[in-house]
């Protein structure tokens, strides 16, 4: 049976269809404004409302520039997406980057330096930011990103649980011992099955969480804060602080163990009302406002020999591969106006990087939880930053693994610290490529 050959006309029609399809795929997508940029940010649904409201306010202020908001739910997905986009040369035009990760991009020349633009800006003034904050975004002396917030670690607490136990709110000058005593008093096996049902405290075992305790005790996280080339946790004061932190789980059992944490993470337990105190930065606020069915507030970190805290901050960065640097800068300028910062602060997500906004009702609104938001501002003079190193993210990841093992009693603190120091040492090298 002979096979029918397609007629010449049908072949031409087929070819034309294919060509049209290819052209349709290659054509640029239609845009709303004359110019179009994209802004990529991360956060859970409650946090992402902050970025949607920022984008909306920019669309109103600058109708000629359309902004596409790219939302990534998870922080580690966001980092990998950002890394892949930057490597592929197709990043969003404005990206949120944590100051601890900024150097890893800056040393490869992936970010557009912003020092000159900030100096020339008529909308922005360097002096309006909290003193010292811009330094966290300088790579080899040049400003790379504009900070959008200046958060730090605080203790969230369930006031209902404290009241029920007859415990007063944590004082502004409470100490490590006060924290431990309170956590012990609030840890209980309520149904007598031999397993703890209410935990006094929840905290993630990581370098970021343990660092302020190390500094408060007089230790150092790196051997030389100015010229670091090794972790500093081997020093005796630092080791004592890590031991105290680890003992919260291994000795006092006021924090869930590895199995309990895997079964139900501490943040979920806090939201469910079965963990009384929870250490987190400002990022918990939108979610807790929406989901916590109890009276809650925040207290400063308890102090030891001194008060100290660790900077939690993201900045608006413009990738060097942006398609429209001027439009991207216009978005960053807008995002850093007092009006826009007030809009974002209103969602609860940020501690504004502009001092005037942070000290206004936009942030301190007494009618919105947490009533003690001022603790973030009071902590600012004690905030320290991690070293600005290209390999810092790798250092933290490796150190976190070791701290977690010690925290869950799988190795001694001494062994964990030794392993952390040895494994992270290569990443302190200049350039960051071990």
């Amino acid at each position, binding site marked *: 049976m*002979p*096979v029918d*050959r397609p007629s010449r006309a049908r072949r031409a029609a087929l070819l034309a269809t294919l060509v049209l399809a290819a052209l349709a795929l290659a054509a640029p997508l239609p845009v709303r404004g004359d110019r179009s940029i994209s802004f990529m940010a991360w956060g859970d649904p409650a946090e992402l409302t902050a970025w949607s409201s920022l984008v909306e306010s920019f669309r109103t202020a600058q109708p000629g520039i359309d902004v596409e908001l790219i939302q990534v739910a998870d922080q*580690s997905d966001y*980092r*990998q997406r950002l*890394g*892949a986009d*930057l*490597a*592929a040369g197709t990043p969003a035009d404005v990206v949120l980057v944590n100051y601890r990760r900024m150097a890893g991009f800056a040393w*490869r*020349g*992936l970010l557009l330096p912003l020092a000159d633009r900030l100096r020339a800006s008529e909308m922005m003034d360097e002096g309006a930011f909290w003193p010292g904050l811009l330094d966290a975004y300088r790579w080899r002396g040049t400003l790379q990103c504009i900070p959008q917030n200046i958060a730090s670690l605080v203790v969230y607490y369930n006031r209902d649980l404290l009241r029920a136990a007859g415990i007063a709110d944590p004082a502004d000058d409470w100490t490590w011992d006060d924290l431990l005593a309170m956590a012990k008093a609030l840890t209980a096996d309520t149904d007598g099955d031999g*397993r703890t049902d209410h935990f006094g405290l929840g905290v993630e075992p990581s370098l970021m969480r343990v660092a302020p305790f190390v500094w408060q005790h007089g230790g150092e996280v790196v051997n030389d804060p100015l010229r670091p080339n090794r972790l500093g946790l081997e020093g005796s004061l630092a080791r004592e602080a890590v031991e105290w932190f680890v003992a919260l789980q291994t000795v006092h059992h006021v924090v869930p163990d*590895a*199995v*309990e*944490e*895997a*079964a*139900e993470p501490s943040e979920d337990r806090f939201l469910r009302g079965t963990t009384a105190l929870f250490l987190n930065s400002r990022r918990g606020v939108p979610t807790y406002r929406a989901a916590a069915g109890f009276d809650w507030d925040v207290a400063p970190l308890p102090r030891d020999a001194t008060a100290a805290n660790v900077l939690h901050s993201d900045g608006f960065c413009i990738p060097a591969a942006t398609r429209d640097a001027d439009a991207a800068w216009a978005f960053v300028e807008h995002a850093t106006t007092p009006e826009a910062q007030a809009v974002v602060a209103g969602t609860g997500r940020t501690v504004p990087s502009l001092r005037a906004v942070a000290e206004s009702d936009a942030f301190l609104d007494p009618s919105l939880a947490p009533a003690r938001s001022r603790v973030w501002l009071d902590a600012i003079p004690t905030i320290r930053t991690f070293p600005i190193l290209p390999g810092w993210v*790798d250092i933290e990841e490796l150190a976190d*693994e070791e701290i*977690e*093992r010690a925290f*869950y009693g*799988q190795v001694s603190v001494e062994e964990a610290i030794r392993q952390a120091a040895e494994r992270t040492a290569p990443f302190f090298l200049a350039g960051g*490529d071990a």
Partner: protein
Amino acid sequence: MPDPGRVAALRDPWRRGPWLMLAPWLVGSLLLVGLPALLTLLLSLTAYDGISAPVFTGFDAYRIVARDPLAGRALENTLLFLVAAVPLRIIGALGLALLLERPRRGTGTARVAAWIPAVIPDVAAALVWLWIFNPLLGPVNLLLGALGLPTPGWLADPETARIPFVVMAAAGLGEGFVVLLAALKGIPPEIRSAAALDGAGRVATFRAITLPFLVPWLVVLSIRDTVVALQWTLIPALVMTGGDPYYSTLFLPQAIREEAFDRFRYGPGSALIVLLALVAAAVSVGILLLARGRGVTDAD
């Protein structure tokens, strides 16, 4: 001058047809598999951060990988997973196919139930397994506890964290099950009837007739499952553990992803991909040699 015979052959639709039919697949394979594989091989001989131009460094990336304890850990975890998951999948699929071969009451429902886990997206399945193996609230430990048996920490314990991955992989045996069910249907019934007439019991019939008929299918499935299992862990690991606790569920695909896309080290990342491909090739050749030693050839 072109050979008139060949030109005629090309004009003949019967000769040209198969190539035309194959063309989309061939072009796709070359562009989407062959070319990236070649580029990966070339990248593995370079230092490349995705930004500056790649620098040829010979086998340096392989030396970096060989010295990297985490790469070694990922390879070890991947091999342990492979050795446990692939035989479980094949034996499970074979057992289910034998069990559900003959139509009885409820066979249809049981066949669908065996097939369904294979079509559930990995992300959704991983979330379900995360709950099933939840050390305090999950059904597995609730059942074990009710029976008075020890309740492991599963994904929270470095000693047991890989087991849920193996179980999850084994549960997705639907494709192998369907293939083996079809293969069983392909065995001429008169051969088994004759064996039964000769007084062969079930075990003897299985060993002397059913199994030899199925061996070529089992070989194909083993090779296919090996290749799939080597890559499959990425999504479940990202959803369930992220490689924790302490790298006990760090498998090669995640190690590759982190090396290349998190640390911008495409040279060692590509070297790890080549390593993954070599493992797949070595295991596949091993299975083929084993099968050939048992008298199975392509002619079967």
